[in-house]
């Protein structure tokens, strides 16, 4: 297993459903990572500046509001603009299949929908942390399950 990571778990946009984000945060904690939970209704700017201050290596975005196609790419773009190219972005929530490819192309490396096991998310973190797949990497890889 790769070492301990610092992971931001964030809820971008106007969405008050954070049960999923809390369960993921808890699973990552139990896998030995340091998870910084930012709370509800954060802007992409706030999420990126938290990642800068906390020296995070991963950002997990949870959205159930339908605004993921706007908010997730915005976070990726802001990270690149801030020179945070090595940060790895993953997402989850209610993300329709048809929206996913566009998010991968923007630099999101995994999308986890309802029913995903916490084991799989932990496996993704372990795998991705050993691969140079930050938002600024030219790698077009994305997680396709265990």
């Amino acid at each position: 297993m790769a070492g301990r990571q610092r992971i931001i778990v964030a809820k971008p946009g106007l969405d008050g459903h954070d049960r999923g984000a809390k369960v993921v945060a808890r699973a990552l904690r139990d896998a030995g990572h340091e998870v910084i939970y930012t709370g509800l209704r954060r802007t992409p700017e706030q999420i990126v500046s938290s990642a800068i201050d906390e020296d995070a290596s991963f950002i997990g975005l949870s959205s159930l509001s339908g605004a993921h196609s706007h908010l997730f790419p915005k976070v990726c773009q802001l990270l690149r603009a801030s020179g945070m190219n090595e940060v790895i972005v993953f997402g989850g929530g209610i993300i329709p299949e048809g929206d996913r490819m566009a998010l991968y192309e923007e630099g999101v490396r995994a999308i986890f929908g309802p029913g995903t096991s916490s084991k799989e998310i932990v496996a993704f973190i372990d795998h991705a942390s050993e691969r140079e797949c930050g938002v600024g990497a030219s790698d077009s890889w994305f997680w396709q399950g265990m």
Partner: protein
Amino acid sequence: MNAELAQAIPGFGKGCDYLDRRALAKEITAIEEGLLKPDVGQGLIIGITGAPGVGKSCLIDALLHCWTPGLKVAVLAVDPTSPISGGALLGDRIRMTSLDDSERRESIYLRSIATRSASGSTPYIVSDLCSHLLARDFDLVVIETVGAGQAEIRCAAMADRIIVIEGPSRGDGVQAEKAGILELADLVVVNKCDLPGADVVVNQLSMSLDLDIEPPTVVKVSALKGDGIEPLAKTILSLKKRTTSEKARIRERLMIANERRFLESMDFKAAVDSIHGGLSTIESIMESSK
């Protein structure tokens, strides 16, 4: 106000127009990992401690609204590391609305710290981080300890001033008579005064503390409503240290110096695994760490 502050805070007004937050964040990580020696800085270090849920984060946020952008303030918010997995859930950012204010943001650096292998509510590495942040031109570093109980006085080793937060409905009057962190407090703040019972707590604490040689002031605030926060922000900056706590601080410093030497002498996690796996014993680990 600046002249007053210059007196209260050694090295105040060092000036810092531009903060490379990313470089600073990486330095903090390197110090935490033991890969970088901290720079030596001077300034004021305030420790804020109290039981879980008593309002430490919320109160610090309210104080940041008063102190910034006039002062440059760094906050080290400590949360516990899981003794089972070694992971941590760091949730102190949630309360920090002052970071969302573009006028204040540049004057604040908030970092969430996990206790990792260290014991107590404030890991020893925090003292290195404070020194480094003060060397990076912060006027003030605030340590928010893990939600802490009566006997938890570790932050006294690192902070120049100790502020203990209390709240209503936290037990009867005997709680205020018990020994521990209250004896080291330079200031006692009863938060949540918008809730019933706050006056009773203030009275009980004042009556008990008045029996001390140098009783700390007890103040009543509501971080949520903003009551009493502005005077509190001023009081903290000119707070006098209780001289009776000096010996206890030295005791804590000695304890952490010992703990640090022990933890740095080995791979602590591997040692725990090895005892758990029956490959060594506590005695053999202690022998090899000498």
